[in-house]
């Protein structure tokens, strides 16, 4: 049993109201968090991790939970995505692999994209973190060092373990952001930013309203492969999504997650091959992608293993979209 620390919960009903609230808090220099489904934020709160004075819930805002082939609202529940006939099958498949069905009923697309980075030195209770004298990601004013890679104290290497991001990347999604300073659009590929603390391009007061996909996305064939110890509950220890328009080698997209502080598009690795995409290309591609990533030791499985598995996941994902028997 864990006691939830106190905070003020706000329930704006329109996007404008939400932005107004955010501006007010920013002006008063009061800290706040956005909450969508709460399945990531609230467990962290119970552990007294980065608890803010105010929490603004997006749950009552109408019209930001659309689900279609070309647009998914930030408040669309993952449970709804897994059963929807209208979203891209890759999204439905990736969403179905998130946590457990109970959590998916509450968890949202926006929340999954903005998932806080994770690390076993960080996702612990206050007592526990005190026993290691805190860490860089949540130093409680002590200026503590990173516990994963000591003596660097510049970057947080907590791992991003969202399941959906790579699929959104390989479907060429665009994230629509709104905030006190207005709207902007960012390709999913560019949304995430180093490091484990910065996480993404969202400025203070901004939040995601929706993700859109280009015309023709319905022609893409995709596959998401997730490595985890248990078939339920577990965050990905590594994840690879790929997609292409069958027969069009230039359309091949590959992205990975759960290996570093941000999910990564592997476009440059894909572009390094000039040959037509075929079964013969699968092994060399998987090798190159494996070499491009550097996981660290802060999740359940050791980094060397996760790195090696990327090769297997890329192979399996590509074999699936190319139509080979896995």
């Amino acid at each position: 049993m864990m006691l939830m620390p106190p905070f003020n919960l706000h329930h704006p009903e329109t996007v404008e109201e939400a932005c107004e609230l955010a501006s007010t808090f920013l002006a008063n220099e009061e800290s706040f968090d956005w909450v969508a489904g709460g399945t990531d934020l609230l467990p962290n709160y119970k552990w007294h991790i980065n608890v803010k004075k105010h929490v603004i819930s997006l749950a009552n805002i109408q019209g930001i939970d659309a689900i279609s082939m070309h647009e998914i609202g930030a408040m669309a529940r993952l449970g709804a995505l897994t059963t929807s006939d209208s979203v891209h099958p890759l999204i439905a498949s990736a969403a179905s692999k998130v946590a457990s069905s109970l959590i998916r009923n509450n968890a949202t697309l926006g929340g999954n994209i903005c998932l806080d980075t994770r690390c076993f030195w960080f996702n612990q209770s206050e007592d526990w973190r005190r026993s290691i004298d805190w860490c860089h990601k949540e130093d409680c004013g002590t200026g503590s060092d990173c516990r994963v890679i000591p003596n660097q104290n510049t970057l947080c290497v907590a791992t991003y373990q969202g399941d959906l991001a790579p699929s959104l990347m390989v479907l060429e999604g665009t994230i629509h952001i709104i905030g006190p300073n207005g709207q902007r659009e960012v390709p999913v590929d560019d949304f995430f930013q180093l490091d484990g603390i910065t996480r993404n391009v969202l400025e203070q007061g901004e939040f995601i309203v929706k993700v859109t996909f280009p015309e023709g996305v319905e022609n893409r064939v995709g596959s998401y492969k997730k490595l985890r110890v248990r078939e339920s509950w577990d965050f990905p220890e590594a994840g690879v999504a790929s997609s292409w328009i069958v027969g069009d080698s230039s359309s091949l997209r590959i992205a990975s997650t759960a290996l570093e502080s941000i999910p990564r598009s592997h476009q440059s690795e894909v572009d390094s091959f000039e040959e037509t995409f075929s079964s013969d290309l699968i092994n060399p591609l998987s090798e190159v992608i494996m070499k491009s990533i550097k996981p660290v030791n802060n999740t359940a499985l050791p980094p060397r293993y996760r790195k090696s598995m990327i090769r297997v996941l890329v192979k399996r994902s590509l074999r699936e979209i190319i139509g080979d028997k896995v």
Partner: protein
Amino acid sequence: MAGGYRQQPGASSGETRKDGKRVAGKQKFPPPGSGGSRPNMAPRDLDSIPESVGGKEPQPAGSHIHDRYRTGTEVGKPRALIDSHAKVTGQAWYGDDVRLPNEIIGKILRSPHHYAKIKSIDTSKVEALPGVLAVATGADAPNTFGVLPVTKDEHAMAVEKVRHVGDLVACVAAVDEATAMEALNLFEIEWEVLDPIFDPRKGLEDQDEPIHWRGKYHVGTTNVQKRVFQEFGDRSLVEDPTASSHGKWRMEGVHHGFTEPHAVVGHWDPNGRLQLYTPQQVPHYAHRALSTVLEVPMHQINVIRTFVGGGFGGKSDPFPHEMCAAILSRKAGRPVRINFTREEVYWINRGRHPSYIEVKMTADDEARISGFDIDALIDGGGFASFGHVTSYYNGVLATAPYELGSFHYTGARVWTNKPASGAMRGHGAVNTRCAVEVGLDEMAEQMQVDPIDLRLANLLPPHSRTISGFRITSNGMREALERVREGSEWDSKFRQMPLGKGIGIGCGFFISGSGLPIHWDPNRFPHATVHMQIDMDGGVTVHTGAADIGQGSTTAVAQVVSEVLALPIEMIHVRSHESDTSPVDLGSYSSRVTFMNANAAIRAALDIREKLLNAAWEMLGYHPDVLVLNDRRIYYKHDPAVGVSYLEALHKAQEDKGSLISSGAYRSPPMGGVHKGAAAGLAPAYSFSAYVAEVDVDVETGLVSCTNVWAAHDCGKALNPLAVKGQIIGSCHMGLGQVLSEKMVYGRTGHLQNPNLLEYKIPSIHEMPHVTPIIVESSDPEGPFGAKEAGEGPLLPILPAVVNAVYDAIGVRIRDLPLTPDVVWKAISAKTKALGVIEETELPSPRLEHSALQATLVARSAEHKERDRRRQRSEDTGAYVNGVLFGFDPNQPLEDQVEGWRSAVEPVPEQLAELGLAGKAWLKKEQRQMEGDQ
């Protein structure tokens, strides 16, 4: 006999409606013996009455002393646990469901250091915080306690020093949880941080500041808490082996993972007596410890066991937080509740010991097992807990079910600065069992024989004695092996499946109750006592101290009483929650409850039965020998129409006495050897089990999934087959967790990295294989109606069965548990490299071509099968001791027959150089032996 006999002539009830139903509330008191709404006595259920007493229940294992008391009412029938209604409707009151008026909340301040001396604690700021009602520190309770009388090394809160991160430092009670948590930040403590140790191998070395100090018994200045040496048999037999296996294992620590975190309420009532509510497996030991720590006599303490949301050994120690609740409540004058978070549950731990185990074993030219050589170094964490016993169990519980030429065991348990390990389902036997069974598989492969036949040809028979002197009575090992072989279609699968698919065998052997109780004072005190009371209404109230931790002990007691008295189970009311009303019971550990408690209950019920029969004798004129009890009626054997109702007999028996009262007790018979440690592992009966597991291994990722399990367990007699099957399936789940994914991860800084249920990976329903439970009934001569344990033994075989199946699938023997995908993948990669294959998918699968020895084994096991049958059915009552297979005479002391037959509990000096890892603990002297040196 269909339709039964009318119990009462004429219409018996009051008003009836037009539809023939009776009108509620307008009924006369039901006539004696009507048993409620059923006017007729149910016919005797001959299918549930043994052959030996005229029924139709087959008894392949022979008759049993309790057969005469079988009435066909409950025993052997699948029965939903009688407390299940309370559980499924949410009305069962677990630790956190207790709410007393004026209750306040206690919180515990825990150590942020692995190992440190407390130089001072200033509580003034805590006490000044509004809302804080009591504060306590180690100084408030200096007396030590511990579950074993020989190793009392715990305090309610740290006195002098803390021994692991999370160790209790102080506690506070406040009006609400938020205030209590705020108060925890106000303690001012001066620490002197000491150098911690985490690696148990370092625990064998001399230290400046050992974690505990045992005075003259301390081994050097090391952190060795307990060391064991045992050697039996003829060591010369291990020379020139035909096959041998040498395995070094590393097993991670695992936790019970019970659903309910610890929760306790302490309350000093207006008379100054302590009422302590706690989900305890062993309320009696908590009772004793509370008395010691609080310095209050036991009769001034009432321990109230709430419903227990799973224990598995993890709630069997007296716990410091129980003391804290009592101390805070005494200070505050109000009830104090302490609830744990999951993280605190991991910090109090008592899970299975992280272990380094080395097993060398050999087989001779006739494929007899000539030697087991086991070395087990186990990591005890910060406190002794059950560790004294665990240190023995790691060795001695490997001495059966096989006949051994020799047995050599060295074990050591060391303190480290980690949460304390303790007892967990399959206590001490699980890890070594896995190592031994995998070793057998390896030897079978070297000899190119079937591993099941290797086992079948080396089993100890029923009614025999192990190499270390354990008395084996009933033994269903052979049947268990035969039935899983058949059920799994082993002969068409083993070593014949493609790469990535495998099948494996593993066996188990476990105690059914420990022969010696932990506390044996007062002398000759029974292990279990049951009181029974029947008043004029006919309902039977059974008082027992047995702690139902979900295993169904309450149901088992109700069932045996129901069976003896031929009353429906709804008439049996079990009261087991309070130490004020329950006779002392030693608690739910060592798989003792069904065996000991049900035996005591049968004795109490027999006393009542005798009184009822005597009353019926007086009324009917027929001697009890010719009277039959059946469904609330007692009648003349040869004319069922002549009889009295149960209530009539009861009321007759109650004349001038009032309610019938009886008491039954159980104490295990004297047995076992006389050597040091001979009592460890002694049990009045032993359970046996054999599992076959089928696995799929993904050779590219190393992910192992167990798909099918055939699980045969010899529980003597299934009093409740439904409960036995539940225990088998539950054990599979728990054991699978240990073998595939669960581990307590201590990172490079010694901190427990995964004290939560997301990162401590208990298998989910997706990981559960299809389990086919197979119940083997060997009818134990001393068990209640033949029953033995089914709660712990079934866990043992799943580990080796899976490890052996993984070998069958990929040809790699892995000795690091759990078999997480990274561990398996690493082993596959190494093998791929060694063989020079490019892709993992091209690895060869192991295959079997029977050698000449196979025929020898098949012939021998056929011969032994007949031997076992005769011994089981008492057609052969000759002595049988371990060693007969090697040609020795069971009627002569083995020492006289073989030169070099040893029975030793300490190494001789020339052995010291060749001892294994844990054996190195014997290189040091105890302080008392060193005194002369200085």
